[in-house]
């Protein structure tokens, strides 16, 4: 029976994406019976390319996505190279893990308030410069999209950092660092020449997922990105929301264009990888030591610290907003405080948290069961999975949500599952499964296989080996994977809203609806609420193993991994 788990898992991930893509592909070529589109044709594409600034939007999405991903990867790699194994490294690890639980939109709002011309940093400066009006410079919504890149980088660094952390133990980095040091290489150069080539293949797919996200992001782009024109994904959302229903065709073809943009971005990235690999081999052999890298080391710590710090400061500022009275420029702190808004929202909070859990718990439980099943099946059959399998897992993360949501909506309506908890859970599963799999697969596979072999040879059945040996050893990894899944499902907006047809008011749907009102107090309140559940999840992942195995020192090594 375990044999079927991988197939079922793939079906849950790929099925909805395929159905959704078909549902978007057809209108892109003119076929949507409800709007009178029965003849295939290229009209939607013609309309799309006639839109003003369409190529600029495409370029914006492509280039800014590539830059944001590159900067994130560079900072993470530099930081790991410069500080791995030190106290600063461990400190950064502890700071960055909770940041994962912060929703992208919340982080972007916090950052927006920090750096805006009427924002907190400007107000600090205004104290000295004596401004009574904010300067009229475009920092947020700047035409080049730098603010958007900053917002993306701030949230991508923690994710990539944690993926890299997972890959490091397998590359024997401590000994490698020792060897390169004794050979006379500076710390950073040694890491880049010896360790990076070994771990990059492990983190490649997360990097590509980050790239796909950056090129197709909607909420961060709305909050921080340019508006004249906006990146492609934002415009697509606008067309899908336009009352002129005839625009749906064009929106669908734009959604396919967005998919192509992601594919092109990945293509460029992979080509760059090969080029860098070639150049890297030559550089590795040329013997340059780069011994004096103190400046770069400090710089990398500053950059990493800056991104984490900016994000956290942004959150603090949002917290202040949530209890603020009127807070005008150039006040550093609000003139008055008020808990009135928290009080008013109190009742609504309870029910939206319950609804969020109603969806989240089944989703996470199903996901963890399926993923454990797949991994256990892989271990028992003693087959190593092919590269194709991992691409299947990443597919939902690489196809932009906006490119298949409309089609998925129609699909669920067709099979009569619309507005049911089942359909919402299924649509959440599409995105939760990959993340849970990614989170759990490395620790699972890294588990010493000889534990299992020993247990089998001691006469225990494979079931017994799973429940009594493998699973306990992986307690922290499983709980962490569940926390990751929880964070992903709590943060879902489009699936809950569209597939659930508004029956399910979760914390996130409420947050986005209120954020459209623009009031930073509500954004602060609901942004903080959005973080409560994921934080609780990660806290459990830390505390439960610590409590369960408090008398087992040997488990610390397992739990750290």
């Amino acid at each position: 029976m375990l044999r079927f788990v991988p197939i079922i898992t793939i079906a849950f991930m790929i099925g909805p994406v395929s159905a959704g893509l078909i549902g978007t592909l057809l209108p892109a070529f003119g076929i949507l019976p409800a709007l009178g589109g029965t003849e295939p044709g290229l009209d939607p594409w013609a309309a799309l390319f006639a839109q003003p600034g369409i190529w600029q939007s495409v370029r914006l999405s492509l280039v800014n996505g590539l830059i944001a991903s590159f900067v994130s990867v560079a900072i993470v790699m530099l930081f790991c190279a410069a500080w791995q194994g030190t106290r600063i490294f461990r400190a950064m690890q502890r700071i960055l893990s909770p940041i994962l639980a912060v929703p992208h939109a919340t982080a972007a709002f916090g950052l927006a308030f920090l750096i805006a011309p009427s924002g907190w940093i400007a107000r600090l400066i205004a104290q000295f410069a004596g401004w009574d009006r904010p300067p009229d410079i475009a920092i947020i919504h700047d035409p080049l999209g730098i603010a958007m890149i900053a917002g993306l980088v701030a949230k991508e660094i923690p994710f990539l950092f944690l993926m890299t952390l997972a890959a490091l133990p397998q590359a024997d980095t401590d000994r490698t660092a020792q060897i390169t040091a004794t050979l006379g290489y500076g710390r950073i150069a040694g890491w880049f020449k010896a360790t990076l080539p070994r771990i990059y293949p492990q983190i490649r797919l997360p990097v590509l997922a980050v790239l796909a996200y950056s090129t197709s992001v909607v909420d961060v782009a709305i909050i921080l990105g340019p508006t004249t024109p906006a990146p492609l994904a934002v415009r697509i959302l606008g067309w899908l929301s336009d009352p002129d229903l005839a625009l749906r065709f064009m929106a669908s073809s734009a959604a396919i264009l967005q998919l192509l943009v992601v594919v092109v971005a990945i293509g460029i990235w992979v080509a760059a990888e090969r080029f860098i690999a070639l150049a890297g081999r030559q550089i590795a052999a040329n013997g340059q030591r780069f011994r004096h890298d103190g400046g770069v080391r400090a710089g990398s710590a500053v950059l990493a610290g800056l991104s984490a710090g900016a994000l956290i400061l942004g959150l603090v500022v949002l917290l202040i907003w949530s209890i603020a009275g009127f807070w005008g420029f150039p006040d550093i702190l609000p003139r008055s405080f008020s808990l009135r808004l928290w009080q008013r929202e109190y009742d609504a909070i309870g029910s939206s948290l319950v609804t969020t859990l109603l969806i989240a718990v089944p989703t996470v439980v199903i996901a963890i069961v399926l993923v454990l099943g797949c991994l256990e099946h892989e271990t028992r059959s003693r087959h190593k999975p092919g590269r194709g399998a991992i691409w299947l897992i990443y597919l939902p993360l690489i196809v932009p949500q906006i490119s298949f949501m409309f089609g998925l909506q129609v699909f669920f309506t067709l099979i009569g599952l619309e507005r049911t908890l089942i359909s919402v859970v299924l649509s959440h599963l599409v995105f939760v499964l990959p993340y849970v799999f990614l989170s759990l697969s490395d620790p699972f596979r890294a588990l010493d296989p000889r534990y299992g072999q020993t247990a089998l040879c001691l006469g225990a059945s494979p079931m017994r080996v799973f429940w009594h040996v493998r699973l306990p050893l992986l307690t922290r990894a499983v709980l962490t994977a569940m926390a990751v899944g929880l964070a992903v499902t709590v943060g879902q907006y489009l699936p809950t809203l569209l597939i659930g047809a508004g029956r399910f008011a979760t914390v996130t749907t409420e947050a986005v609806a209120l954020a459209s009102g623009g009031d930073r107090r509500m954004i602060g309140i609901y942004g903080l609420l959005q973080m409560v559940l994921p934080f609780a999840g990660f806290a459990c992942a830390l505390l439960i193993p610590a409590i369960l195995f408090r008398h087992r020192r040997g488990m610390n090594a397992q739990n750290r991994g």
Partner: protein
Amino acid sequence: MPSDHSETGLELRTVSIRLDRQELLAVDLVITPGEIVTLMGPSGSGKSSLLGHICGTLPAQFDVSGQVVLNGRCLDGCPPQDRHVGILFQDDLLFPHLSVGGNLAFALPASVKGKAKRRMMVENALKNADMDGFADRDPATLSGGQRARVALLRVLLSEPCALLLDEPFSKLDSELRGQFRSFVFEQCRKSSLPTLMVTHDPEDGSAAGGRVINLA
């Protein structure tokens, strides 16, 4: 000890292990009960793979031919948990989430019923190994030598019909090594287990006192 058809020991009938169509090793031998056969060879020569094949945990990418027969029963196609072949690695691999007693109890066959009886067997085994009262200890608090002893006790409690040793002494320092080595061989002979040891240290082979096969 499960009473088998015949105590003929462990037979490897023209067992050949290939990887990517290159033959790693070929062996044909019979190990009688209580006999300790030493297999020596450089790393990469397939010694551990042979052990993996015998206990049934060899990954699928290897190609194997020949037969493995234990006490007259052909082991081919038999899952590892039904083979009654014990294995000791160079790491003790005690389960860190269980106590010493828990590790040992894990190995006890299900046929031993009743908490009290199982507990008694575990404590007897510990007593015979000079580790009385260790049952509730955390394995991580034991010394290297103690852990190695517990690992051996664990294997023996599972009532194997054959024992495989994968360089079990290489992680111990020389003083402990001699002691532990004698302890292991003594147990093997006492329990009349056909034992196959794989090592690259010639001292192990001479201490075992049995046949030494060089694979080089």
